[in-house]
Protein backbone atom coordinates (compact mmCIF):
# COMPACT_ATOMS: atom_id res chain seq x y z
CA UNK A 1 0.00 0.00 0.00
CA UNK A 2 1.28 3.44 -0.86
CA UNK A 3 2.16 5.73 2.03
CA UNK A 4 -0.33 8.43 2.99
CA UNK A 5 0.35 11.86 1.63
CA UNK A 6 1.17 14.19 4.50
CA UNK A 7 1.67 17.38 2.57
CA UNK A 8 0.54 18.40 -0.86
CA UNK A 9 0.61 21.63 -2.82
CA UNK A 10 -1.42 22.38 -5.91
CA UNK A 11 -0.37 25.10 -8.33
CA UNK A 12 1.31 27.04 -5.52
CA UNK A 13 2.48 30.37 -6.87
CA UNK A 14 4.21 33.41 -5.42
CA UNK A 15 5.02 36.62 -7.23
CA UNK A 16 6.82 39.56 -5.70
CA UNK A 17 5.82 42.47 -7.90
CA UNK A 18 6.67 41.18 -11.36
CA UNK A 19 9.14 38.58 -10.15
CA UNK A 20 7.92 35.01 -10.06
CA UNK A 21 9.44 33.28 -7.05
CA UNK A 22 7.35 30.12 -7.45
CA UNK A 23 5.17 29.14 -10.37
CA UNK A 24 2.50 26.42 -10.19
CA UNK A 25 4.38 24.15 -7.84
CA UNK A 26 2.66 20.76 -7.48
CA UNK A 27 4.38 18.91 -4.72
CA UNK A 28 3.69 15.68 -2.82
CA UNK A 29 5.34 14.57 0.40
CA UNK A 30 4.42 11.09 1.64
CA UNK A 31 4.17 10.52 5.37
CA UNK A 32 7.38 9.28 6.96
CA UNK A 33 9.65 10.26 4.12
CA UNK A 34 12.82 12.33 4.38
CA UNK A 35 12.76 14.61 1.39
CA UNK A 36 15.43 17.08 0.38
CA UNK A 37 14.57 20.22 -1.50
CA UNK A 38 17.51 21.47 -3.49
CA UNK A 39 18.18 24.02 -6.18
CA UNK A 40 20.56 26.84 -7.05
CA UNK A 41 20.53 30.10 -5.08
CA UNK A 42 17.39 32.08 -5.83
CA UNK A 43 15.47 29.02 -7.04
CA UNK A 44 12.61 29.80 -4.63
CA UNK A 45 13.20 27.15 -1.99
CA UNK A 46 12.79 29.36 1.03
CA UNK A 47 9.78 31.09 -0.48
CA UNK A 48 8.22 27.71 -1.11
CA UNK A 49 8.59 26.45 2.46
CA UNK A 50 7.58 29.89 3.71
CA UNK A 51 4.27 29.37 1.92
CA UNK A 52 3.94 25.87 3.37
CA UNK A 53 4.10 27.05 6.94
CA UNK A 54 2.32 30.33 6.38
CA UNK A 55 5.12 32.82 6.95
CA UNK A 56 4.73 34.03 3.38
CA UNK A 57 1.22 34.35 1.93
CA UNK A 58 0.81 32.55 -1.39
CA UNK A 59 -0.32 34.54 -4.42
CA UNK A 60 -2.39 31.58 -5.59
CA UNK A 61 -2.63 27.82 -5.20
CA UNK A 62 -3.38 25.55 -2.28
CA UNK A 63 -1.59 23.71 0.50
CA UNK A 64 -3.00 20.49 1.98
CA UNK A 65 -1.82 18.96 5.23
CA UNK A 66 -3.13 15.51 6.16
CA UNK A 67 -5.72 15.97 3.42
CA UNK A 68 -7.08 19.23 4.80
CA UNK A 69 -6.82 22.50 2.91
CA UNK A 70 -4.74 24.76 5.16
CA UNK A 71 -4.19 27.53 2.59
CA UNK A 72 -6.29 30.03 4.54
CA UNK A 73 -4.80 29.29 7.98
CA UNK A 74 -2.40 31.74 9.62
CA UNK A 75 1.10 30.48 10.43
CA UNK A 76 0.53 29.76 14.13
CA UNK A 77 -2.46 27.53 13.36
CA UNK A 78 -0.51 25.55 10.78
CA UNK A 79 2.30 25.07 13.30
CA UNK A 80 -0.24 23.92 15.86
CA UNK A 81 -1.40 21.21 13.43
CA UNK A 82 2.04 19.63 13.75
CA UNK A 83 4.48 21.47 11.53
CA UNK A 84 7.82 22.61 12.89
CA UNK A 85 9.97 25.07 11.04
CA UNK A 86 13.58 25.98 11.75
CA UNK A 87 14.79 29.30 10.44
CA UNK A 88 17.47 29.66 7.80
CA UNK A 89 18.82 32.65 9.68
CA UNK A 90 19.23 31.55 13.28
CA UNK A 91 16.31 32.84 15.30
CA UNK A 92 16.39 31.75 18.92
CA UNK A 93 15.28 33.64 22.03
CA UNK A 94 18.76 35.06 22.57
CA UNK A 95 18.13 36.55 26.03
CA UNK A 96 16.50 33.45 27.49
CA UNK A 97 18.23 30.33 28.79
CA UNK A 98 18.64 27.39 26.44
CA UNK A 99 16.21 25.39 28.56
CA UNK A 100 13.47 28.01 28.30
CA UNK A 101 13.93 28.20 24.53
CA UNK A 102 13.04 24.53 24.20
CA UNK A 103 10.42 24.73 26.97
CA UNK A 104 8.53 27.37 24.97
CA UNK A 105 8.38 24.91 22.08
CA UNK A 106 7.27 22.01 24.27
CA UNK A 107 4.79 23.98 26.37
CA UNK A 108 2.81 25.46 23.52
CA UNK A 109 0.26 22.69 23.06
CA UNK A 110 -0.69 22.94 26.73
CA UNK A 111 -1.08 19.19 27.29
CA UNK A 112 1.76 18.80 29.79
CA UNK A 113 2.29 19.89 33.36
CA UNK A 114 5.34 22.06 33.98
CA UNK A 115 7.23 19.08 35.41
CA UNK A 116 6.44 17.01 32.31
CA UNK A 117 7.53 19.93 30.14
CA UNK A 118 10.89 20.05 31.90
CA UNK A 119 11.35 16.27 31.56
CA UNK A 120 10.69 16.51 27.87
CA UNK A 121 13.04 19.50 27.53
CA UNK A 122 15.88 17.62 29.23
CA UNK A 123 15.24 14.63 27.00
CA UNK A 124 15.40 16.76 23.85
CA UNK A 125 18.50 18.65 24.98
CA UNK A 126 20.19 15.38 25.83
CA UNK A 127 19.39 14.02 22.40
CA UNK A 128 21.05 16.93 20.61
CA UNK A 129 23.92 17.15 23.10
CA UNK A 130 23.09 20.51 24.64
CA UNK A 131 22.05 19.31 28.08
CA UNK A 132 25.24 20.51 29.76
CA UNK A 133 24.56 24.00 28.41
CA UNK A 134 20.89 24.09 29.40
CA UNK A 135 21.28 26.99 31.83
CA UNK A 136 23.34 29.20 29.54
CA UNK A 137 21.72 32.17 27.87
CA UNK A 138 21.02 31.15 24.28
CA UNK A 139 22.72 34.24 22.86
CA UNK A 140 26.00 33.19 24.50
CA UNK A 141 26.12 29.89 22.60
CA UNK A 142 28.42 29.50 19.62
CA UNK A 143 26.81 29.83 16.23
CA UNK A 144 26.89 26.08 15.68
CA UNK A 145 25.22 25.43 19.01
CA UNK A 146 22.54 27.99 18.24
CA UNK A 147 21.77 26.11 15.02
CA UNK A 148 21.48 22.92 17.04
CA UNK A 149 19.24 24.71 19.52
CA UNK A 150 16.97 25.64 16.62
CA UNK A 151 16.70 21.97 15.78
CA UNK A 152 16.05 21.12 19.44
CA UNK A 153 13.18 23.61 19.47
CA UNK A 154 11.73 21.87 16.43
CA UNK A 155 12.07 18.48 18.10
CA UNK A 156 10.40 19.85 21.22
CA UNK A 157 7.28 20.48 19.19
CA UNK A 158 6.89 16.76 18.36
CA UNK A 159 6.10 17.68 14.78
CA UNK A 160 4.44 15.48 12.19
CA UNK A 161 6.31 17.46 9.58
CA UNK A 162 9.72 18.93 10.32
CA UNK A 163 10.87 21.61 7.88
CA UNK A 164 14.56 22.47 8.15
CA UNK A 165 15.74 25.48 6.19
CA UNK A 166 19.47 25.04 5.50
CA UNK A 167 20.23 23.59 8.92
CA UNK A 168 23.90 22.82 8.31
CA UNK A 169 24.80 26.26 7.01
CA UNK A 170 27.83 27.45 8.95
CA UNK A 171 28.30 24.26 10.95
CA UNK A 172 31.71 22.69 11.46
CA UNK A 173 32.42 19.36 9.79
CA UNK A 174 32.00 17.39 13.04
CA UNK A 175 28.70 19.14 13.75
CA UNK A 176 27.47 18.29 10.25
CA UNK A 177 28.18 14.61 10.93
CA UNK A 178 26.24 14.82 14.18
CA UNK A 179 23.39 16.48 12.34
CA UNK A 180 23.29 13.74 9.71
CA UNK A 181 23.15 11.12 12.48
CA UNK A 182 20.34 13.03 14.16
CA UNK A 183 18.26 13.20 10.98
CA UNK A 184 18.82 9.52 10.25
CA UNK A 185 17.82 8.79 13.83
CA UNK A 186 14.56 10.73 13.37
CA UNK A 187 13.64 8.87 10.19
CA UNK A 188 10.47 6.90 10.51
CA UNK A 189 9.21 8.83 13.53
CA UNK A 190 8.56 12.02 11.62
CA UNK A 191 8.38 13.35 8.08
CA UNK A 192 11.24 15.64 7.16
CA UNK A 193 11.56 18.30 4.50
CA UNK A 194 15.14 19.44 4.28
CA UNK A 195 16.37 22.43 2.33
CA UNK A 196 20.06 21.85 1.93
CA UNK A 197 22.98 23.09 -0.10
CA UNK A 198 25.47 20.57 1.14
CA UNK A 199 25.05 17.70 -1.36
CA UNK A 200 26.96 15.34 0.86
CA UNK A 201 24.36 15.83 3.60
CA UNK A 202 21.54 15.41 1.07
CA UNK A 203 22.96 12.13 -0.23
CA UNK A 204 23.48 10.78 3.28
CA UNK A 205 20.00 11.60 4.55
CA UNK A 206 17.38 12.02 1.83
CA UNK A 207 15.19 9.22 0.54
CA UNK A 208 13.83 11.48 -2.18
CA UNK A 209 14.89 14.75 -3.73
CA UNK A 210 12.93 17.55 -5.36
CA UNK A 211 14.83 20.08 -7.43
CA UNK A 212 13.56 23.61 -7.81
CA UNK A 213 14.90 25.91 -10.51
CA UNK A 214 13.57 29.37 -11.37
CA UNK A 215 10.64 28.75 -9.06
CA UNK A 216 9.48 25.58 -10.80
CA UNK A 217 9.99 21.92 -10.10
CA UNK A 218 12.72 20.73 -12.39
CA UNK A 219 12.86 17.13 -11.28
CA UNK A 220 12.08 14.75 -8.49
CA UNK A 221 13.13 11.23 -7.70
CA UNK A 222 15.55 9.17 -5.69
CA UNK A 223 19.01 10.58 -4.98
CA UNK A 224 20.41 8.28 -7.67
CA UNK A 225 17.94 9.46 -10.31
CA UNK A 226 18.57 13.10 -9.48
CA UNK A 227 22.34 12.67 -9.64
CA UNK A 228 22.07 11.24 -13.13
CA UNK A 229 19.50 13.71 -14.38
CA UNK A 230 21.02 15.85 -17.19
CA UNK A 231 18.59 18.74 -16.63
CA UNK A 232 19.64 18.95 -12.98
CA UNK A 233 23.30 18.89 -13.92
CA UNK A 234 22.67 21.68 -16.38
CA UNK A 235 20.81 23.78 -13.85
CA UNK A 236 23.62 23.45 -11.34
CA UNK A 237 26.49 23.85 -13.77
CA UNK A 238 24.64 26.13 -16.16
CA UNK A 239 26.44 24.90 -19.30
CA UNK A 240 24.84 22.53 -21.78
CA UNK A 241 21.67 24.43 -22.70
CA UNK A 242 23.59 27.61 -23.28
CA UNK A 243 25.48 25.90 -26.08
CA UNK A 244 22.39 24.50 -27.81
Amino acid sequence: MAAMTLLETRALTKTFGGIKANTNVDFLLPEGQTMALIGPNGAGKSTFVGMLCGRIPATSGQVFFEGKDISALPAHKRIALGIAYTFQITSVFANLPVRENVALAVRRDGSRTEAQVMDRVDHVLDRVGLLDRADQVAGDLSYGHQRILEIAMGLGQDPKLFILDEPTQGLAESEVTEFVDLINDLKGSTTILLIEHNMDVVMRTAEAITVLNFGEILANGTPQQIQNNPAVQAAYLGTSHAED
Partner: protein
Amino acid sequence: MTGKSKSYALHLCLIALLAAAFFILPQYHVGVLSRVMVLAVYAMGYNMLFGYTGLLSLGHALFFAAGMYGFGLSVQQGGLPTGLALLIGLATAFTVSLVVGFLALRTKEVAFMIVTLMFAQAGYLTVLYFGSITRGDEGFVINTAKRALFGVDLSDETARFWAALLLFSVTLLAMAALVKSSFGRALIAVRENEERAMMLGYDTHRLKYVAVLLSGTLAGIGGMAYALLFGYVGATFASVQYSIFPLLWVLLGGAGTTIGPLLGVLFMYYLIDISSSFTDAYMLVAGVALLILCLFAPQGLAGELRKRVFPWLP
Protein backbone atom coordinates in the same frame (compact mmCIF):
# COMPACT_ATOMS: atom_id res chain seq x y z
CA MET B 1 15.71 27.36 47.96
CA THR B 2 14.56 27.18 44.39
CA GLY B 3 14.03 30.28 42.28
CA LYS B 4 10.30 29.90 42.72
CA SER B 5 10.31 29.80 46.52
CA LYS B 6 12.85 32.63 46.63
CA SER B 7 10.52 34.70 44.53
CA TYR B 8 7.59 34.00 46.89
CA ALA B 9 9.78 34.87 49.88
CA LEU B 10 10.89 38.10 48.22
CA HIS B 11 7.35 39.28 47.53
CA LEU B 12 6.08 38.40 50.98
CA CYS B 13 9.09 40.14 52.57
CA LEU B 14 8.42 43.25 50.50
CA ILE B 15 4.79 43.31 51.62
CA ALA B 16 5.83 42.79 55.26
CA LEU B 17 8.35 45.60 54.93
CA LEU B 18 5.70 47.97 53.62
CA ALA B 19 3.37 46.99 56.45
CA ALA B 20 6.14 47.59 58.99
CA ALA B 21 6.78 51.00 57.46
CA PHE B 22 3.36 52.09 58.70
CA PHE B 23 4.49 51.67 62.31
CA ILE B 24 8.02 52.97 61.87
CA LEU B 25 7.79 55.91 59.51
CA PRO B 26 6.53 59.39 60.43
CA GLN B 27 3.01 60.20 59.29
CA TYR B 28 4.11 62.25 56.30
CA HIS B 29 6.00 59.33 54.80
CA VAL B 30 3.15 56.94 55.49
CA GLY B 31 0.96 59.25 53.40
CA VAL B 32 3.57 59.27 50.64
CA LEU B 33 3.77 55.50 50.72
CA SER B 34 -0.01 55.17 50.24
CA ARG B 35 0.22 57.29 47.13
CA VAL B 36 3.29 55.43 45.88
CA MET B 37 1.62 52.04 46.28
CA VAL B 38 -1.45 53.12 44.31
CA LEU B 39 0.71 54.57 41.55
CA ALA B 40 2.77 51.36 41.63
CA VAL B 41 -0.40 49.44 40.71
CA TYR B 42 -0.66 51.68 37.67
CA ALA B 43 3.04 51.10 36.96
CA MET B 44 2.63 47.32 37.27
CA GLY B 45 -0.15 47.48 34.70
CA TYR B 46 2.16 49.39 32.41
CA ASN B 47 5.03 46.99 33.09
CA MET B 48 2.92 44.06 32.02
CA LEU B 49 2.63 45.48 28.52
CA PHE B 50 5.98 47.23 28.22
CA GLY B 51 8.23 45.12 30.41
CA TYR B 52 6.86 41.66 29.73
CA THR B 53 5.22 41.86 26.30
CA GLY B 54 7.56 44.42 24.76
CA LEU B 55 4.86 46.83 23.60
CA LEU B 56 5.68 50.48 24.26
CA SER B 57 2.50 52.47 24.81
CA LEU B 58 2.62 56.24 25.12
CA GLY B 59 -1.05 56.46 25.98
CA HIS B 60 -1.63 54.66 29.24
CA ALA B 61 -3.05 57.80 30.86
CA LEU B 62 -6.14 56.98 28.82
CA PHE B 63 -6.68 53.75 30.76
CA PHE B 64 -5.78 55.34 34.09
CA ALA B 65 -8.25 58.14 33.40
CA ALA B 66 -10.91 55.72 32.11
CA GLY B 67 -10.96 53.99 35.49
CA MET B 68 -10.73 57.27 37.36
CA TYR B 69 -13.51 59.06 35.47
CA GLY B 70 -15.66 55.95 35.08
CA PHE B 71 -15.71 55.67 38.85
CA GLY B 72 -15.53 59.38 39.76
CA LEU B 73 -18.27 60.61 37.44
CA SER B 74 -20.70 57.87 38.35
CA VAL B 75 -20.18 58.24 42.10
CA GLN B 76 -20.02 62.05 42.28
CA GLN B 77 -22.06 63.37 39.36
CA GLY B 78 -24.24 60.27 38.93
CA GLY B 79 -24.81 59.76 42.63
CA LEU B 80 -24.40 55.99 42.40
CA PRO B 81 -23.30 53.90 45.40
CA THR B 82 -19.53 53.50 45.74
CA GLY B 83 -19.42 49.75 45.07
CA LEU B 84 -21.45 50.03 41.88
CA ALA B 85 -19.41 53.04 40.74
CA LEU B 86 -16.22 51.00 41.16
CA LEU B 87 -17.66 48.30 38.92
CA ILE B 88 -18.51 50.95 36.34
CA GLY B 89 -14.95 52.30 36.54
CA LEU B 90 -13.63 48.78 35.98
CA ALA B 91 -15.97 48.22 33.04
CA THR B 92 -14.97 51.56 31.52
CA ALA B 93 -11.25 50.78 31.67
CA PHE B 94 -11.88 47.30 30.27
CA THR B 95 -14.01 48.59 27.40
CA VAL B 96 -11.51 51.32 26.50
CA SER B 97 -8.72 48.68 26.50
CA LEU B 98 -10.85 46.44 24.31
CA VAL B 99 -11.35 49.14 21.69
CA VAL B 100 -7.87 50.68 21.82
CA GLY B 101 -6.21 47.25 21.78
CA PHE B 102 -8.27 46.13 18.81
CA LEU B 103 -7.30 49.18 16.77
CA ALA B 104 -3.78 49.93 18.00
CA LEU B 105 -2.51 46.35 17.62
CA ARG B 106 -2.91 46.67 13.87
CA THR B 107 0.28 48.71 14.12
CA LYS B 108 3.75 47.92 15.42
CA GLU B 109 6.65 49.62 17.13
CA VAL B 110 6.81 53.38 16.43
CA ALA B 111 3.37 53.39 14.83
CA PHE B 112 1.98 51.67 17.95
CA MET B 113 3.53 54.39 20.12
CA ILE B 114 2.02 57.13 18.00
CA VAL B 115 -1.41 55.54 17.79
CA THR B 116 -1.62 55.00 21.56
CA LEU B 117 -0.40 58.57 22.14
CA MET B 118 -3.10 59.90 19.82
CA PHE B 119 -5.84 57.88 21.47
CA ALA B 120 -4.76 59.23 24.84
CA GLN B 121 -4.73 62.79 23.53
CA ALA B 122 -8.23 62.26 22.16
CA GLY B 123 -9.26 61.02 25.61
CA TYR B 124 -7.69 64.06 27.28
CA LEU B 125 -9.44 66.45 24.90
CA THR B 126 -12.72 64.62 25.47
CA VAL B 127 -12.39 65.28 29.20
CA LEU B 128 -11.82 68.97 28.49
CA TYR B 129 -14.58 69.15 25.88
CA PHE B 130 -17.20 67.90 28.31
CA GLY B 131 -15.99 70.38 30.90
CA SER B 132 -19.49 71.01 32.20
CA ILE B 133 -19.59 67.43 33.49
CA THR B 134 -15.91 66.69 34.12
CA ARG B 135 -14.98 70.19 35.34
CA GLY B 136 -11.97 69.98 33.00
CA ASP B 137 -8.57 70.99 34.34
CA GLU B 138 -9.98 72.13 37.61
CA GLY B 139 -11.42 68.70 38.27
CA PHE B 140 -13.75 67.75 41.08
CA VAL B 141 -13.56 66.41 44.59
CA ILE B 142 -15.35 63.26 45.66
CA ASN B 143 -17.42 63.71 48.82
CA THR B 144 -15.90 62.12 51.89
CA ALA B 145 -19.20 60.34 52.52
CA LYS B 146 -18.84 58.57 49.16
CA ARG B 147 -15.30 57.42 49.91
CA ALA B 148 -16.30 54.52 52.14
CA LEU B 149 -16.33 50.85 51.25
CA PHE B 150 -17.73 48.05 53.42
CA GLY B 151 -18.22 50.60 56.19
CA VAL B 152 -14.56 51.68 56.16
CA ASP B 153 -13.90 55.39 55.69
CA LEU B 154 -11.09 55.47 53.12
CA SER B 155 -10.47 59.18 53.50
CA ASP B 156 -8.90 58.36 56.84
CA GLU B 157 -5.10 58.24 56.66
CA THR B 158 -4.79 54.84 58.38
CA ALA B 159 -7.53 53.09 56.43
CA ARG B 160 -6.18 54.56 53.23
CA PHE B 161 -2.73 53.11 53.87
CA TRP B 162 -4.02 49.60 54.52
CA ALA B 163 -6.38 49.73 51.55
CA ALA B 164 -3.49 50.83 49.32
CA LEU B 165 -1.29 48.07 50.73
CA LEU B 166 -4.01 45.46 50.19
CA LEU B 167 -4.52 46.50 46.57
CA PHE B 168 -0.78 46.66 45.96
CA SER B 169 -0.15 43.25 47.53
CA VAL B 170 -2.89 41.50 45.60
CA THR B 171 -1.61 43.03 42.36
CA LEU B 172 2.02 42.18 43.12
CA LEU B 173 1.26 38.55 43.96
CA ALA B 174 -0.98 38.22 40.93
CA MET B 175 1.76 39.62 38.71
CA ALA B 176 4.32 37.29 40.26
CA ALA B 177 2.08 34.28 39.58
CA LEU B 178 1.27 35.51 36.09
CA VAL B 179 4.84 35.96 34.90
CA LYS B 180 5.72 32.45 36.06
CA SER B 181 2.68 30.93 34.33
CA SER B 182 2.82 29.54 30.82
CA PHE B 183 0.85 32.59 29.67
CA GLY B 184 3.41 34.95 31.18
CA ARG B 185 6.28 33.01 29.63
CA ALA B 186 4.56 33.17 26.26
CA LEU B 187 4.33 36.96 26.64
CA ILE B 188 8.06 37.07 27.30
CA ALA B 189 8.57 34.99 24.16
CA VAL B 190 6.62 37.60 22.20
CA ARG B 191 8.79 40.34 23.69
CA GLU B 192 12.01 38.52 22.89
CA ASN B 193 11.24 37.36 19.37
CA GLU B 194 7.71 37.66 18.11
CA GLU B 195 8.24 35.89 14.82
CA ARG B 196 9.88 32.92 16.48
CA ALA B 197 7.04 32.70 18.99
CA MET B 198 4.56 32.67 16.12
CA MET B 199 6.55 29.94 14.37
CA LEU B 200 6.38 27.85 17.53
CA GLY B 201 2.61 27.97 17.15
CA TYR B 202 1.75 30.81 19.54
CA ASP B 203 -1.08 33.09 18.51
CA THR B 204 1.02 36.18 19.12
CA HIS B 205 -1.70 38.63 18.15
CA ARG B 206 -4.09 37.14 20.68
CA LEU B 207 -1.39 37.16 23.37
CA LYS B 208 -0.71 40.84 22.74
CA TYR B 209 -4.40 41.65 22.82
CA VAL B 210 -4.91 39.89 26.15
CA ALA B 211 -1.85 41.74 27.47
CA VAL B 212 -3.36 45.09 26.44
CA LEU B 213 -6.66 44.14 28.12
CA LEU B 214 -4.99 43.14 31.38
CA SER B 215 -2.58 46.06 31.33
CA GLY B 216 -5.23 48.65 30.49
CA THR B 217 -7.67 47.30 33.05
CA LEU B 218 -5.00 47.25 35.74
CA ALA B 219 -4.06 50.85 34.89
CA GLY B 220 -7.75 51.69 35.22
CA ILE B 221 -7.88 50.03 38.64
CA GLY B 222 -4.96 52.26 39.63
CA GLY B 223 -6.88 55.35 38.47
CA MET B 224 -10.02 54.24 40.27
CA ALA B 225 -8.14 53.57 43.49
CA TYR B 226 -6.47 56.95 43.25
CA ALA B 227 -9.81 58.71 42.99
CA LEU B 228 -11.29 56.65 45.81
CA LEU B 229 -8.40 57.04 48.23
CA PHE B 230 -7.35 60.62 47.52
CA GLY B 231 -10.76 61.98 46.57
CA TYR B 232 -9.80 64.02 43.55
CA VAL B 233 -10.45 63.58 39.82
CA GLY B 234 -8.86 65.97 37.31
CA ALA B 235 -7.81 66.25 33.67
CA THR B 236 -4.10 66.24 34.57
CA PHE B 237 -4.40 62.51 35.11
CA ALA B 238 -5.52 62.10 31.49
CA SER B 239 -2.71 64.27 30.11
CA VAL B 240 0.40 63.10 28.32
CA GLN B 241 2.40 63.60 31.52
CA TYR B 242 0.60 60.65 33.08
CA SER B 243 1.38 58.52 30.04
CA ILE B 244 5.08 59.28 30.36
CA PHE B 245 5.25 58.75 34.13
CA PRO B 246 4.64 54.98 34.07
CA LEU B 247 7.25 54.61 31.32
CA LEU B 248 9.81 56.45 33.48
CA TRP B 249 8.87 54.56 36.63
CA VAL B 250 9.18 51.22 34.91
CA LEU B 251 12.42 52.11 33.13
CA LEU B 252 13.98 53.35 36.36
CA GLY B 253 12.72 50.52 38.52
CA GLY B 254 13.46 47.79 35.99
CA ALA B 255 11.26 46.80 33.08
CA GLY B 256 10.18 43.19 33.14
CA THR B 257 10.70 42.74 36.88
CA THR B 258 7.89 42.34 39.40
CA ILE B 259 9.31 44.71 42.02
CA GLY B 260 10.67 47.27 39.53
CA PRO B 261 7.49 49.36 39.25
CA LEU B 262 7.34 49.99 43.01
CA LEU B 263 11.04 50.85 43.17
CA GLY B 264 10.67 53.21 40.23
CA VAL B 265 7.69 55.09 41.68
CA LEU B 266 9.36 55.30 45.09
CA PHE B 267 12.63 56.53 43.63
CA MET B 268 11.03 59.18 41.42
CA TYR B 269 8.72 60.40 44.17
CA TYR B 270 11.49 60.95 46.69
CA LEU B 271 13.91 62.25 44.10
CA ILE B 272 11.53 65.09 43.27
CA ASP B 273 10.38 65.48 46.87
CA ILE B 274 13.88 65.81 48.31
CA SER B 275 15.45 67.83 45.52
CA SER B 276 12.58 70.32 45.50
CA SER B 277 13.30 71.13 49.15
CA PHE B 278 16.82 72.21 48.15
CA THR B 279 16.27 73.96 44.86
CA ASP B 280 13.64 75.24 42.47
CA ALA B 281 15.49 73.48 39.68
CA TYR B 282 14.39 70.09 40.99
CA MET B 283 13.49 68.87 37.51
CA LEU B 284 17.14 69.38 36.59
CA VAL B 285 18.14 67.08 39.44
CA ALA B 286 15.57 64.55 38.27
CA GLY B 287 16.91 64.82 34.71
CA VAL B 288 20.51 64.28 35.78
CA ALA B 289 19.52 61.31 37.93
CA LEU B 290 17.67 59.82 34.97
CA LEU B 291 20.70 60.29 32.75
CA ILE B 292 23.00 58.64 35.28
CA LEU B 293 20.67 55.68 35.63
CA CYS B 294 20.33 55.31 31.87
CA LEU B 295 24.11 55.34 31.48
CA PHE B 296 25.09 53.12 34.37
CA ALA B 297 22.01 51.02 35.06
CA PRO B 298 20.22 50.74 31.74
CA GLN B 299 18.12 47.85 33.00
CA GLY B 300 16.76 49.86 35.91
CA LEU B 301 17.25 49.30 39.63
CA ALA B 302 15.73 45.83 39.85
CA GLY B 303 17.13 44.90 36.45
CA GLU B 304 20.68 45.63 37.61
CA LEU B 305 20.05 43.73 40.83
CA ARG B 306 18.98 40.75 38.76
CA LYS B 307 21.97 41.02 36.48
CA ARG B 308 24.56 41.42 39.22
CA VAL B 309 23.29 39.80 42.41
CA PHE B 310 20.03 37.86 42.21
CA PRO B 311 19.65 36.10 38.87
CA TRP B 312 16.43 34.46 40.12
CA LEU B 313 14.67 37.81 40.50
CA PRO B 314 11.30 37.45 38.77
